């Protein structure tokens, strides 16, 4: 059973939203500024710059911890920037390698008639069925997005949900012990909390 949840601190931005959300389910959130193996689950939270976040994690040893965590099959949740950090590289920070847990890259929205960042509630279309992750959720739900870059995933079968903002893009991936969303489930009202609850249940059954 998951009890202690480590929230990785890249040194910039708001960790309180995810901290509060984790507490809702009776779990113990711990903000991680350095390596700490005494946690049952890791969260790579949203907000921040790809290059700065990776550099910060490399300096404090959390970069290695996440990779080890993944290899050991322990649960990892990535949110917003988090879904991007687990990929190989990003247009936001050329020459900087991501965690590389998943084969894919991060590219910038290039849209003619839409404002960037994509900052609004948008439809998340779940591409899978009959999973504990979708308990109490409809096939399509609104979640809150704030981002200028989006993930491009090579292995199509791990794409769990997609969204559209000028183009279709992957908004959620599930690969065994790794779940990641481009949207902020911790700021997406009751549906967001429900999805977080489902993810924790899913991790507990791994």
């Amino acid at each position, binding site marked *: 059973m998951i009890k202690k949840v480590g929230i990785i601190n890249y040194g910039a931005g708001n960790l309180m939203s995810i901290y*509060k959300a984790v507490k809702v389910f009776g779990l113990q959130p711990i903000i991680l500024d350095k390596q700490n193996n005494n946690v049952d689950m890791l969260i790579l939270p949203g*907000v921040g710059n790809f290059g700065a976040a990776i550099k910060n994690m490399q300096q404090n040893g959390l970069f290695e911890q996440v990779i080890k965590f993944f290899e050991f099959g322990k649960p990892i949740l990535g949110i917003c920037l988090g879904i991007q950090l687990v990929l190989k590289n990003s247009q936001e920070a050329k020459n900087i390698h991501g965690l590389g847990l998943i084969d894919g890259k991060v590219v910038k929205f290039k849209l003619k008639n839409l404002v*960037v960042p994509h900052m*609004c509630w948008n*439809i998340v279309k779940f591409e899978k069925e009959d999973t504990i992750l979708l308990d109490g959720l409809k096939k399509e739900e609104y979640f809150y997005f704030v981002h200028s870059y989006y993930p491009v995933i090579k292995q199509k079968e791990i794409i769990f949900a997609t969204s*559209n903002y000028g183009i279709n893009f992957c908004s959620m991936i599930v690969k065994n012990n790794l779940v990641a969303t481009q949207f*902020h489930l911790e700021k997406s009202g009751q549906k967001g909390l429900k999805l977080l609850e489902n993810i924790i249940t899913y991790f507990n059954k791994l």
Partner: protein
Amino acid sequence: MYTVRIIPCLDVKDGKVVKGIHFENLRYAGDPVELAKWYSDEGADEIVFLDITATIQNRKTLYKVVEKTAKNVFVPLTVGGGIRSIEDIRNLLNSGADKVAINTAAVKNPQLVKQAAEIFGSQCIVVAIDAKKVFEARTSKKVKKSCWEVYINAGTTPTGLDVIKWAKDVERLSAGEILLTSIDADGTKQGYDIELTKNVVDNVSIPVIASGGAGKIEHFIEVIKKTNVSAVLAASVFHYKKYSIKKVKLALKNHGINVRI
């Protein structure tokens, strides 16, 4: 497809929600903690919390109120009022704000916006612009061109800055969003300033939140359809329960506007 955000705004003075007209004659409208929770549960897409009497002395009180308010809010929370430094922003984010709105300090020290965006990310930095119409210049014999001036210090101090020019500047400074309030329309319930809003939306490529003047559902529909604004903010109509957020959203949907319901 993406949706237009409906945002209730809490103007907070000494820990209480108040509402005035043209930024004056404030009256009590509720408790921020209770109102924010109610809006969050009721379908608000975001909540804006503005400390309208922010002074250095009551900063600590503010952080406590923000913390209490944020506790029950699971939609994005923007907090503004009296922000002067990176440290103020950090404290607000640590208290539970997701974004901060900077107004006076952005005008006095534009580099603060740039620096804050570099540290916390553009998505986190909202520049609030309070605009007042000053004149209609004649660009030729027939064409009249409206002009708005930026006001600071809670709408009390004119700056000499042109709103459109300032809006372009804040985009260049990497602000993620503009919260545009018409001082002329604020609290009048006579509708948003369409001309002002359209002018700003057409001149920047970052999201703009229209604010000031909402009194009827038609006002929301009008500003969204005529200006292509990303979000609409309102206070009185929601606080005094004239309309629920849900009712406004259903009406917008019936008019073919994408909203989250």
